[in-house]
């Protein structure tokens, strides 16, 4: 496909996102994405025609709600190539998935003297639950450090793995550096050391094909809202044998088989982990978002995001007085471009761009240990989705070029 054809195609897809008709350049997709009309429509349709409390009712409507919900689970399983639909646990978001996993898995598998390896570039949600549980269990949290470009070398990994390692928590793509970790290779080494690997897929599942069986990860967490689905629906994938061995995280309705005063049996997976009334609307929305991604296709998504990232990285380098965070190679940024403007605080940069309609993120991006590791307080981040355009990157660069002048330099 030539450049003009790609442009027409992106323009057509863009029209499916009502919010993108506004006069803004939305470049904060690593925080959350906008929603296409087919996701919004399916939500409306579900609540207008199929809504009831699933699993509980024997009437037709409740059965329809159950079918919608379980069909979404099958869709998600196919999307990440899980072996069984029961390996998909619906949660609110990646944060809840990681909390469920850390609380429940560590409870029975971690004891004094054990080690949990966590990379320094994890989002707080893949750091704090492990830190809390390690401290609670008298285990040690071991820091896995990438180099300045975000690369985890074999030496770095080998230096932290030992017979004491029980689990390794690692992001697939860093939400700050944009660098993709070679999970398949790392998982092999982690397994050889006798440990399990949990992958934070919040920034990878929306942007590249993720195959849990090919990666051979034990757990994968991700959020729907970063991949065109509504907020409030996310996924914890776990290999069946691990999920079956784990205790519930939240206790309550719909996660049991029988409950008597002195005798309780819990439901099978995944329901054991889905206490209370579940988010059917969210699951149906996530299913529609997956259909949408499949329709657009990974080739188009990846090619467009790569092009935009490259354009932004090269443009930033040309502007001068800007420090790019992470690898100097645009290919190592996977849609995420993080930077600091010399002499200007990131909040001021984001505020100035924001007042011109360019939406970027500023701050520590919920990754303060990484900020410490990189020796910066905070940074600015532009992050792309395939629906972003060359014009938006140009607009971003133009506004960025004015920042230092506005602050009196």
């Amino acid at each position, binding site marked *: 496909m030539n450049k003009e054809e790609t442009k027409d195609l992106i323009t057509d897809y863009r029209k499916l996102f009502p919010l993108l008709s506004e006069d803004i350049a939305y470049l904060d997709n690593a925080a959350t994405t906008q929603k296409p009309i087919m996701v919004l429509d399916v939500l409306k349709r579900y609540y207008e025609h199929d809504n009831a409390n699933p699993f509980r009712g024997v009437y037709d409507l409740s059965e329809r709600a159950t079918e919608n919900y379980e069909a979404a689970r099958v869709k998600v399983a196919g999307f990440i190539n899980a072996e069984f639909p029961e390996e998909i646990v619906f949660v609110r978001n990646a944060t809840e998935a990681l909390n469920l996993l850390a609380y429940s898995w560590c409870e029975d598998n971690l004891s004094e003297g054990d080690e949990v390896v966590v990379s320094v570039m994890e989002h707080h949600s893949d750091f704090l639950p492990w830190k809390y549980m390690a401290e609670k269990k008298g285990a040690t949290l071991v820091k896995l450090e990438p180099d300045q470009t975000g690369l985890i070398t074999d030496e770095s990994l080998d230096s932290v793995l030992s017979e004491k390692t029980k689990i390794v928590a690692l992001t697939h793509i860093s939400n700050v550096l944009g660098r993709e970790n070679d999970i398949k290779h790392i998982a092999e080494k982690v397994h050889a050391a006798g440990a399990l690997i949990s992958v934070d897929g919040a920034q990878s599942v929306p942007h590249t094909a993720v195959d849990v069986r090919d990666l051979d990860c034990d757990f994968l967490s991700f959020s729907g809202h970063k991949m065109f689905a509504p907020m409030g629906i996310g996924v914890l994938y776990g290999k069946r044998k691990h999920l079956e061995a784990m205790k519930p995280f939240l206790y309550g309705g719909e996660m049991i088989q029988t409950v008597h005063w002195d005798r309780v049996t819990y439901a099978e997976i995944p329901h054991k982990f889905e206490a209370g009334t579940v988010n059917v609307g969210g699951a149906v929305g996530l299913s529609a978002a997956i259909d949408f991604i499949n329709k657009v296709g990974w080739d188009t998504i990846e090619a467009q995001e790569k092009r935009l990232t490259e354009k932004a990285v090269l443009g930033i380098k040309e502007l001068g007085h800007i420090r790019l965070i992470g690898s100097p190679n645009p290919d190592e940024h996977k849609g995420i471009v993080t930077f600091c403007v010399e002499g200007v605080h990131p*909040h001021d940069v984001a505020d100035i761009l924001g007042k011109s309609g360019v939406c970027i993120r*500023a701050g520590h991006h919920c990754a303060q240990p990484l900020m410490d590791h990189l020796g910066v307080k905070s940074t600015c981040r532009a992050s792309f989705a395939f629906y972003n355009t060359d014009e938006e990157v140009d607009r971003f660069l133009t506004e960025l070029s004015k920042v230092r002048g506005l602050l009196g330099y």
Partner: protein
Amino acid sequence: MDIKRFYNEIVTDHNLHPLHKHPIENPDIELEGVNPSCGDEITVQLKVKDGIITDGSFIGDGCAVSQASADIMIDMVIGKTVEEARHLADIFIRMIKCNATREEIEELREAGALEDISHNPARVKCAVLGWHTLDEMTKDMRYDAKDQK
């Protein structure tokens, strides 16, 4: 809002050329203030004699708004009583919450240049960081001053 009105000369000048951004020797009180939304930290230091602020400074780093606001604040409170400084902090914090009268804002003189930030909820915490820290660190001081008399 016009970006140049927001980043006006008063703000950019105090940010680029702060008068009071340096540590002072033997401060009588100091306190660190943190803006949890961006992780910015500033430490306010004051020398106080007989209930009067004789010297003051701040250190740390942050955005232009937080830095300029802290610099203007220190400039204003030096030479004032703790009571008067707390009064100004009270007005400033209320101004940013759109809850101060025109007469009160006039009392703030240069700090009034930050009034527009009240229309920018994301920056409110930046603007009040120094003032909140001042308010927090002098909370019990009025009584100390009385006790000393």
